[in-house]
């Protein structure tokens, strides 16, 4: 219950922050740009629209996570606004969960808004058959952003906003290479291969949330993929938040 109060407040903060509005405007501007570039694409306009539209959602969402999420907890500690909350009967873990949930909700709103815009645009281009795949791709991108937000909140409980943003960005990049790491592990002897495999397990497997190639061709993914990705996202977020709660539990607010 108290986590929901914190979540609502965090959501309110994100919505009232002009960064989010700028992100939405930029996203719709990119969608408009795809229509301007369409004549240059020699018949590949649909592909260009879908690919650019989906990539925009991820990268703009990532920008919000790095600008807002990485400082979510550390800024509260720095500004001492956290005193007013933690001196109440609010468990620190609930506080952290609330911060994550609030920012994630704001990011889902962004993804939904831009995803709806993209699906509408593609339908207006006469390819309504692509809408299903686009919806699935946007859902997976929303999950991806939720996972990255949990990572940002974890680092935010441990470090300054700048370092948190760097670590989060680093894990985002690393998370795109999990498949490559696993493949690489098979080429090395046992011990080092094991190290690579464990690294791939620890990094967030963000390729699980990537169906952009399928969406580009209007091909939907399987229900199994969606369920596995959802379960993975939930588990990874839970793990990251638990670590963050452990870090925050031992922290003194001088």
């Amino acid at each position, binding site marked *: 219950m108290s986590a929901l109060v*914190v979540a609502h407040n965090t959501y309110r903060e994100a919505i009232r922050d002009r960064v989010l509005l700028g992100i939405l405007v930029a996203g719709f501007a990119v969608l408009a740009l795809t229509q301007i570039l369409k004549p240059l694409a020699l018949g590949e306009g649909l592909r260009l629209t879908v690919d650019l539209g989906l990539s925009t959602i991820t990268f703009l969402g990532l920008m919000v996570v790095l600008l807002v999420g990485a400082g979510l907890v550390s800024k509260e500690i720095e500004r001492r606004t956290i005193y007013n909350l933690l001196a*109440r*009967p609010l468990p620190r873990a609930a506080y952290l969960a609330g911060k994550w949930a609030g920012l994630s909700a704001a990011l889902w709103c962004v993804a939904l808004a831009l995803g709806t815009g993209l699906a509408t645009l593609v339908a207006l281009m006469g390819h309504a058959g692509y809408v299903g795949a686009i919806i699935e791709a946007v859902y997976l991108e929303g999950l991806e952003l939720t996972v990255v937000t949990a990572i940002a909140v974890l680092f935010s409980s441990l470090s300054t906003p700048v370092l948190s943003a760097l670590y989060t960005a680093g894990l985002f990049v690393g998370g795109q290479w999990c498949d490559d790491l696993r493949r690489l592990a098979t080429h090395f002897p046992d011990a080092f291969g094991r190290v690579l495999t464990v690294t791939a397990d620890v990094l967030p497997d963000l390729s699980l949330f990537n169906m952009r190639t399928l969406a580009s061709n209007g091909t939907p993914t399987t229900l199994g993929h969606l369920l596995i990705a959802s379960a993975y996202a939930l588990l990874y977020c839970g793990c990251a938040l638990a670590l963050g709660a452990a870090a925050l539990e031992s922290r003194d607010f001088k």
Partner: protein
Amino acid sequence: MKLGTVQNSTAPAEFHPARGPRTGGADDRDEAAVRVEHLSKSYRSNWTLRVTRGLEDLNLEVRRGEVFGYLGPNGAGKTTTLKILTGLLKPTSGQAWLMGEPVHRVSSRRNLGFLPEQPYFYDYLNGLEYLEMVAKLSGLGGADAGRQARHWLGRVGLGARARLVLRKYSKGMLQRLGLAGALVHSPELLILDEPMSGLDPFGRHDVRDLILEQRERGVTVLFSSHILPDVETLCDRVAIVIGGRLERVGTVSELVSEQGGSVEIRCAGAVVIEVPAPWRQALRLNERPGETLFTLSDPRFLQPVLAWMVESRLAIHAVTPQRGALEQLFLATARSATASTAETTEPERRSA
């Protein structure tokens, strides 16, 4: 700006000290709103590994329903103590209870209202939104939280600006809002760190009234302050902490009577006289327009001094005993504590 009055708004529910379940602890402890036993706090630098002491073996008890003043110079450990009680800091050793509940439990803060020193708020919220949020965090339901938020916003004189965003609040307005936030859920215990900070004389007057009002309702108030006249006026008991150690605790009357009083002797006109050697330390002369003021710090010399004045044909107008002030006690205690600290080798002090 004056605080609002209670008459035309929904008053908070009446509070009685005995309300609420007893949650454990010895019988003695249940009588105390705040209990601290052998509380210590040290800080260790991550780089140099040097240990600095914030609090040392503090033992304290605040009884239910009393107003308790917590005094000390800057860096004495007042804020450290209050932060340990409110769960923001973890003690190095020792224990503390709020209303019988150990402070490490989240539930110990259920009936607590806390105002930190120089409170900070979310500047994108307005006053009403902020109070509703903290009311809900303190356990009030949606409608209740809204009602109480509106009531307390009016009570602290901010009702006309309910929708003003906090980034536009002045320092005094923020302090009032912080007080409202501490009171919105009708707590049984108030812990206030420098509640008069940033307020003009009107504001301070209103905060004093508010504290007295809470005492009437049976709320326990523990507050730290540098403004000693306020402490003298408001507090049932006072503790003085110096260098992380509790130096004195007692009622204001008990403490100031230890000091003894000085005597003020007023004489007409300008006086040119040499004070005899035995009384030179105790007797101070102060010339004022039309009169001369003698202050005798040691009342034991009163009779011989008066006799000498009469003999010297001084025109004595008035002889007035002065009650010992808290400020004098405070300064004397601080000096004595500092002197004894200087005699021993101790770890460096650090404040929260």
